[in-house]
């Protein structure tokens, strides 16, 4: 009884404080190709949903381009709209 596990009510927030950066600005990528499905997989979680900026760290301008490209890829059947185990 003495050594029962300490149960956290909420998960301990591990703050990975590595500086997030926008990979598009850093690498000078200007155009995100909607036909390049496996490049877009990096910005989609395993349910096929677009990852938020706070996780990927991309700037607003390129986050919109990524979202636009993912939606176009979904339209022509390269990316699923919803799935359970994408990766």
């Amino acid at each position, binding site marked *: 009884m003495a050594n029962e596990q300490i149960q956290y009510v909420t998960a301990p927030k591990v703050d990975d404080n590595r500086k997030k950066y926008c*990979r598009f600005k850093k*690498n*000078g*990528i*200007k*155009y995100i*190709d*909607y*036909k390049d499905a496996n*490049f877009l997989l*990096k910005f989609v979680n395993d349910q096929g949903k677009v990852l938020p900026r706070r996780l990927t760290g991309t700037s607003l301008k390129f986050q919109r381009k990524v979202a636009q490209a993912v939606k*176009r890829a*979904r*339209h*022509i*059947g*390269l*990316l*699923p*709209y919803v*799935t359970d185990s994408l990766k």
Partner: protein
Amino acid sequence: MQQYETVIVLTPLLSEETAKEAIAKYSKLLTDVGAEIVQEDNWGLKKLAYPIQKKTTGYYHLTEYRAPGDLINKLEIEFRRDERVLRFLTIALDKHATAYNEKKRSGAFNQKKTVKAEEAAK
């Protein structure tokens, strides 16, 4: 003349040459009106991420062309009328997109295109 890029997904049921013939019909329709085809890319049969009209594979074809703006509407009406075409997507290309396609054609990406690669350096 604005530059456009169209991807069409044809039903996999039709054989190779009927697919080619359908595509030839559209490129002819483009060139008749004076559009200039920059590049045609045939991806062939690919697996779809989700079934479209109960089919799980599609015959992909990409056409990049320079055309007057009013042609796009006529082209898309043709696509809607044709039941062989499962999906179509027409995009107007801006200068970054045309530069990207140019670089892709010139094989600047042939080496393993890791996102971290100094693509900007080229």
